[in-house]
């Protein structure tokens, strides 16, 4: 097969690759831990994805890299920011998208997208892990609840603990004292989710919600966060089956565009 491309997103936690053919069909994807060496992680993600699609990596016609480690992919034909990639990926999956909420490992961003899939404006969190995946990760370790189990637990909560959305480290000590006071786990988890949503909502509000809203990034897998976010924005939110690979998907679309 000829003309296939790879989009690769080297993030702080995971590195994701998407292989796409000329007709914009996704052939395969992969998600690997970024670990210490981004270049190795990128190569691994690409090799795994190529293997799944039954392709030889050297036959790739074009490669676009995105994410914080985009400079660590020496073979990339082009580098595009994750802002443009998440926008392109979200519009590809949900054409009604006008707003993208991406909550990733170490940053969260809200992107306003035009009808043509182009970025109109964006807001990102700054120098603080509150409101990001890292916040949830720290809390899941503290509460000894697996990260992917947090969403389901919070859905069953009847009440909700109040947790600050200002600082991950301080919020962690708040959680410790809640645990000490025998606050039910599910209520703490719901409070944690609320804290993330409040932080992201502050950014979302700046851009004014309109049209379809799509959530991307690993945190979109958390049903609890999505439900609270929907409550905040006052509408149903599109959630992709694989929200983590939307950045890589967008990168693949850029690779096709440039061909």
């Amino acid at each position: 097969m000829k003309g296939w491309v790879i989009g690769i997103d080297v993030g702080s936690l995971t590195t994701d690759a998407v292989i796409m053919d000329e007709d914009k069909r996704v052939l395969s994807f992969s998600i690997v831990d970024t670990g210490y060496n981004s270049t190795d992680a990128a190569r691994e993600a690409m090799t795994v994805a190529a293997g799944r699609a039954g392709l030889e990596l050297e036959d790739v016609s074009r490669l676009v890299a995105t994410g914080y480690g985009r400079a660590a992919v020496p073979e990339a034909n082009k580098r595009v920011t994750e802002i443009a990639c998440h926008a392109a990926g979200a519009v590809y999956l949900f054409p009604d998208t006008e707003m993208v909420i991406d909550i990733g490992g170490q940053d969260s961003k809200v992107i306003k997208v035009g009808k043509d899939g182009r970025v109109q404006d964006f807001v990102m969190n700054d120098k603080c892990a509150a409101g990001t995946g890292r916040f949830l990760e720290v809390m899941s370790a503290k509460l000894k609840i697996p990260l992917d189990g947090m969403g389901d637990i919070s859905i069953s909560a009847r009440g909700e603990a109040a947790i600050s959305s200002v600082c991950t480290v301080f919020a962690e000590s708040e959680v410790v004292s809640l645990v000490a006071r025998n606050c039910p786990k599910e209520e703490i988890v719901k409070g944690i989710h609320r804290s993330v949503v409040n932080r992201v909502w502050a950014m979302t509000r700046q851009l004014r919600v309109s049209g379809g809203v799509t959530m991307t990034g690993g945190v979109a897998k958390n049903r609890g966060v999505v439900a609270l976010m929907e409550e905040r924005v006052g509408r149903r939110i599109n959630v992709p089956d694989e929200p983590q690979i939307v950045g890589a998907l967008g990168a693949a679309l850029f690779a096709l565009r440039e061909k």
Partner: protein
Amino acid sequence: MSIAPEIRYRFMKDIGAPLVMGMAGLKGKRKAAIKRDIPLGPPLKCSKRLKEIMTRHYFLSRYAEGARPVAWVTSGAPVELLRAFDFYTVYPENHGALCGAQKLGPELCSIAEGHGYNQDLCSYARIDIGVCLSGKTPVGRLPRPDILFASNNICQTVMYWYRVLAHHWKIPLMVFDTPFNFVSLDRSAITYMVRQFEEMIPELERISGRKFSEKKFKEVLRLGKSSAMAWGEVLATMKTVPSPMTIFDAFVHLAPIVSLRGLPVTLEYYNVLLSELKDRVSKGIGAIVNERKRLMWDNIAIWYKIRDFSRLFAERGMNFVTATYTNAWAETISYMDERNPMESLAKAYSLVILNNNLDHRLKLMERLIKEYQVDGLVIHSARSCKPYSVGQYDLKRLLMERLAVPSVVIEADITDFRAYSEEQTTTRLEAFFENIEDGG
């Protein structure tokens, strides 16, 4: 004043300073020969003269102590009044910027922090307090002030900061209080400010040991106004495509109008700079080699990133051609009028951008965007400067709605680079570049 410091000051002024300036000039030459930036156009010839002026100013300041009355002044204070008494003035904010550009911010700030000053305090204030407590400064030494002169037209922080200085130096603090301009300036506000000037004069006579001379005061006003107008003309040359200067140049060439306002040297310097720029315009020489996009900057400079940013943007054919910051010294000082000195001085200083309402700022930005043919806006949200940074997201949204100008906010600080994240800023700027290129 005793005789010895007077003689020493005169000697340094006439013989010592020219010598030091000569050396500073030589150093500049050596550097210029080694480094030539490719995406940037030819450097301004004037820069050498600017360096001489500023080196001389700081060099002489250390001999001013005892020879002339010395004042430490905030950037927005009506210094013209002090000039009438022949004060030697030092601007801690200008000195802070200088420390910031030399990447000394965190080191000097942490001295103040060690004495209990919070990291959330303005970094100009922390640097200055750090300098007072340690005596460390890249300019050798700052003269001990006889008086502190502050105006709250730029922020409220200066009130607390200068009170700390007054306590430290055990000297008087003179405050010019400017009512905030919510809609328009009324008569009572003007009277209130003029009365303050009237009260200041006998105090300044006492502290300086000199009589107030109205003639000299009017001459200073005339010089100050002419310099501000010349600075305005300097900035206006950047309306030309390609622009003969970048805003990064302007940030540096701003120093005389900030700290030597009302002195003949400032007017003389801006006339020289202006003629160089006009010459460039007539020859079609641009400040960057390939000017494709024109940008506007909002807020104070990120002093430690000036060099990096000027290259980063020039490499992409993007040139900053205007800034609300550099414009501030051309905007209201021209209201000064020697025929109505006190009242015009009150207007000139109370209507400055940071003492004025947000609607004024929006209109100003709209005007600059149109006049300078701006394609995009970079908004610096400065951790130090709250009055300048508040409202920026609203301004950003309104400018996008009204003029469809793409913009980006970068969070940083004026001098304390511990509050700056390279990786996060790069991502934001690259997304902005994609956006602006996409727009055609």
